[in-house]
């Protein structure tokens, strides 16, 4: 989230789309209720189903799954055509004025540089035009036909309300009401928050859905202000923290990058990422990348990281490509993988195309499940009839099920979706023989290192180079690990005058203290300060809120730098004055930036220095145009899901996302609308958490079995009664469950034709206390978003039919 849960109360318009906060984040949703009750805020919900958020909304607009880009582009067009934008914000705080290269082109849905054989773009023409001074060229009047603003007007002009109705199935009047409410906030007086979740990300063009949201908020001036922002609600309790800490294929903690094999030296890696400012006077904060990187290397390799060996850079594994979960299971399916360790992860349920996943798991030599509970994955080899049809005798995989402590049996810091790091204290002892993740991984690592020391082996230097100098190597303490996350001075740190500003051994107060000469460590710069010299800030529990704006600045610690609203310099105009009294937040008081939050800016830089408010960007401003930073285009274009009930009605030549990665076999596993005319989409239930709580008695009592939501019209067409058992199948697999015939879903009219959609709750499986069900992802396809490789779980094709069985 750019903002926070408690900040939602400052919104005048709340827009929920691609998420269902009332169902999936009920206790966070109370801040929407608060905004409605206390400010008279309006809530609008756009979703294929009239869901639980819609039930309490002031306006609901239906949309066919997978057509979000057209809907959102329609809103962008509405804002531009009707001149309902926050002009000074757009002119000064976005790259609307930047001039794009003359050779950039856009034709029939494709941008210049497309190579069909490689399914990728050469993105060089998507760059700005640079002047003789080396800086990007701009036209602050926004009139130049090649400036981003004019390109945008042209690009989005075709997304009319009529087109939105034809493609997305949203009645024109319902769409226009959404657009009008968005426009009501484009003035610095009112704010709109956008709340989304996996309903936006789980598409083959998911990242472009989020781009659209960011563009809308920038056009309205809703970024950096209270009650604004683009807010990802996020699913797991620490998915924010566990992503921050770099447990993704190409990541290093704090959003630094793992080296690629082209970056043969530390210097070649750093040179690519230490971005120089693209316009005069800018901060371009990533210029500090090397300080963060070297500090990380000092935490990873300790005394083995020296200036002479590039701080251990070459001990790190180097990438020859990325290995996200879809790729992982494709390699496994090809028989190329020996072992899989699942730490609190149930991939047989969670990964697309479960039948492919099961076949892949059966080819492993070993599988380790570290989990408090038994998972379907740990028992993938067990026959559960139609729900998990497999012959155990034929599965040669060795399986280990290791008991891990539950959340209440350990202490540590956890980061919520507002980026607030909070402490959990240990409540109880480990259940039976369970151990913490830290203990299990330490045991494994120490054991393996001993084997290498004793017997030798491949890659011995790399494994022994890792710093494991914990007081008790088998039990590193939470305190020791937290200290590494924060960082400390390794020698006395001196300022320019030679005065010691941080003594050796002391923890750092902020990432501003990090150095690139090996005199500091700290593996995750964005968290630095959360365990600073004054103590453990994650444990702070002062719930006072002097400004009344829901800031809670002394509760826990929000990364980075305890900042609660990101980009908050943009809450003031270029002169440093609040855009309006109503939205007053951070402002220049004549001497420094002040207000209830930590400024997202150098606190003493005066407004007349014209340093842009987006200090992480080399431009100093935000991006309506993303240059070459996204794989599928500098602007969003309408792309259909890979399985869709219609061709692309905007750009007929496009099939799915033209640059999405498609593995052999996955294209053949796609169905057509002839055989599978119905759109399927998956979602959570409020009574369940993913695939955990089907093993929990109370939850199983509340929601005991899998069901399928469908419209009365579809039920009539197929001869299905409410409560009747039905079969749902796609080209890849099938599931069976009861039909819930409901008015919450209505057929769509797409290009004049009736299109049905069914809703499929994802929380069931064959292990636990709920009634057995096949994995929902038996239905879904293993094709993902071209930028993030997030699987397309939210829009695919199925068919349904009634089957014999009692009608409940």
């Amino acid at each position, binding site marked *: 989230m750019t903002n926070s849960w408690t900040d939602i109360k400052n919104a005048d318009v709340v827009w929920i789309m691609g998420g269902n906060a009332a169902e999936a984040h009920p206790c966070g949703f109370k801040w929407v209720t608060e905004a409605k009750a206390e400010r008279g805020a309006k809530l609008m919900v756009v979703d294929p189903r009239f869901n639980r958020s819609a039930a309490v909304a002031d306006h609901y607009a239906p949309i066919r799954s997978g057509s979000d880009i057209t809907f959102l582009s329609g809103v962008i067009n509405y804002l531009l055509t009707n001149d309902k934008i926050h002009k000074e914000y757009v002119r000064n705080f976005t790259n609307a004025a930047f001039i794009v290269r003359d050779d950039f082109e856009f034709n029939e849905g494709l941008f210049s540089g497309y190579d069909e054989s490689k399914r990728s773009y050469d993105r060089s023409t998507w760059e700005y035009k640079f002047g003789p001074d080396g800086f990007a060229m701009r036209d602050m009047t926004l009139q130049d036909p090649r400036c981003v603003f004019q390109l945008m007007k042209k690009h989005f002009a075709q997304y009319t309300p009529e087109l939105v109705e034809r493609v997305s199935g949203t009645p024109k009047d319902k769409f226009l009401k959404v657009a009008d409410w968005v426009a009501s906030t484009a003035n610095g007086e009112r704010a709109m928050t956008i709340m989304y979740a996996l309903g936006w990300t*789980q598409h083959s063009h998911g990242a472009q859905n989020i781009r659209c949201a960011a563009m809308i908020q920038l056009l309205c001036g809703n970024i950096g202000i209270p009650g604004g922002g683009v807010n990802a*609600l*996020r699913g797991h*309790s*620490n*998915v924010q923290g*566990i992503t*921050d*800490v770099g*447990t993704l294929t190409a990541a290093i903690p704090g959003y630094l990058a793992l080296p690629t094999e082209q970056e*043969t030296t530390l210097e070649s890696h750093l040179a690519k990422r230490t971005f120089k400012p693209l316009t005069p006077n800018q901060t371009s904060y990533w210029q500090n990348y090397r300080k963060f990187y070297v500090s990380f290397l000092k935490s990873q390799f300790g005394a083995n990281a020296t200036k002479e060996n590039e701080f251990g850079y070459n001990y790190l*594994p180097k*990438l020859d490509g990325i*290995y996200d*979960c879809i790729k992982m299971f494709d*390699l*496994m399916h090809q028989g*190329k993988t*020996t*072992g*899989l360790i699942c730490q*609190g992860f149930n991939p047989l349920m*969670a990964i697309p195309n479960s039948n492919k996943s099961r076949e892949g798991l059966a080819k492993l030599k070993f599988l380790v499940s570290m*989990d408090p509970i038994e998972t379907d994955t740990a028992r993938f*080899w067990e026959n559960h009839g139609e729900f998990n049809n497999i012959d155990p005798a034929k599965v040669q995989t060795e399986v*280990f099920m290791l*008991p891990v402590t539950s959340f*209440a049996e350990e*202490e*540590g*810091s*956890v980061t919520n*979706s*507002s980026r607030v790091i909070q402490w959990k*204290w*240990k409540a109880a*002892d480990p*259940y*039976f*023989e369970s151990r*913490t993740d830290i203990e299990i*991984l330490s045991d*494994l690592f120490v*054991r393996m290192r001993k*084997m290498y020391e004793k017997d030798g082996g*491949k*890659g011995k230097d*790399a494994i022994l*180079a890792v710093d494991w100098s914990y007081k008790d190597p088998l039990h590193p303490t*939470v305190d020791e*690990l937290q200290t590494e996350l924060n960082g400390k001075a390794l020698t006395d740190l001196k300022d320019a005058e030679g005065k010691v500003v941080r003594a050796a051994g002391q923890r750092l107060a902020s990432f501003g203290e990090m150095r690139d000469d090996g005199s500091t460590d700290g593996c995750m710069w964005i968290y630095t300060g959360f365990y600073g010299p004054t103590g453990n800030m994650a444990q702070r529990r*002062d*719930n006072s809120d002097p400004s009344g704006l829901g800031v809670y600045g002394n509760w826990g610690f929000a990364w980075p730098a305890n900042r609660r609203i990101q980009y908050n310099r943009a809450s003031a105009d270029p002169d440093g004055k609040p855009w309006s009294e109503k939205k007053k937040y951070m402002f220049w008081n004549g001497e420094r930036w002040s207000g209830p939050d930590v400024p997202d800016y150098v606190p003493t830089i005066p407004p007349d220095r014209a340093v842009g408010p987006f200090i992480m960007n080399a431009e100093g401003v935000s991006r309506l145009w993303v240059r070459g930073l996204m794989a599928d285009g500098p602007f969003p274009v309408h792309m259909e899901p890979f399985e869709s009930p219609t061709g692309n009605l905007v750009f007929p030549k496009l099939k799915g996302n033209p640059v999405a990665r498609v593995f052999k076999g996955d294209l053949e596993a796609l169905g057509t609308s002839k055989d599978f005319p119905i759109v399927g989409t998956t979602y959570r239930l409020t009574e369940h*958490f993913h695939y*955990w*709580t089907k093993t929990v008695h109370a*939850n199983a009592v509340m929601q005991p079995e899998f069901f399928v939501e469908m419209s009365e019209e579809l039920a009539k067409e197929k001869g299905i009664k409410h409560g009747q058992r039905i079969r749902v199948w796609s080209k890849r697999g099938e599931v069976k469950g009861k039909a819930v015939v409901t008015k919450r879903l209505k057929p769509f009219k797409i290009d004049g034709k009736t299109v049905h959609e069914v809703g499929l709750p994802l929380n069931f499986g064959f*292990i636990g206390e709920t009634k057995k069900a096949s994995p929902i992802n038996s239905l879904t396809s293993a094709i993902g978003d071209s930028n993030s*490789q997030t*699987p397309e779980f939210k829009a695919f094709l199925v068919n349904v039919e009634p089957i014999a069985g009692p009608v409940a």
Partner: protein
Amino acid sequence: MNMELSRRSFMLGAGAGLAGTSLGALGFGEIEAAHALTIRPFKLAQTKEVRSQCPYCAVCCGMMIFAAESKVEKGKMEVTHIEGDVDHPVNRGTLCPKGAGAIDYIKSKSRVKYPMYRKPGSNGFERVSWDFAMERIAKLMKEDRDANWVEKNRDGVTVNRWLTTAFLAGSSVANEGGWATFKVSRGLGLLQIENQARI
């Protein structure tokens, strides 16, 4: 900090005050003591309270978790009650249907109690010791790492990678455990690493 004066210590204080004034003043002496023995103390008074947070979605609602000596495992503390943390600025004491029932997750019948091992081709798990499990896993991993380690690529660049074992990191692990996970998995040279951010 308001948690210093916990609900438990407040109630203990209040209870002692009551016994000292009303009953004591009436002079019932031994009867009073005998009576006191028949009264069950407040359940809360016997528990240890900590502040924690909900393990489910990323709202991370504050929780008050109460624990007492386990009835199942002697000498250990077990969770006896969970409720919303009234001091927490986001959830203000509320919990959703999942969070309110989180104690059932801790006590789920599906909790794994001991390291379990399934042999190739077998139709069941057997209980094993931690030492057996960890030694076997370490051996399997070393065998695979030694067999498939890539020290240099075709261009002679040092790449130090191990591509044939994969690690799925859990998005409910705390940050400190997350860092240990990173350090170990990268230290081994793994590139097949993923968490639940995408799914």
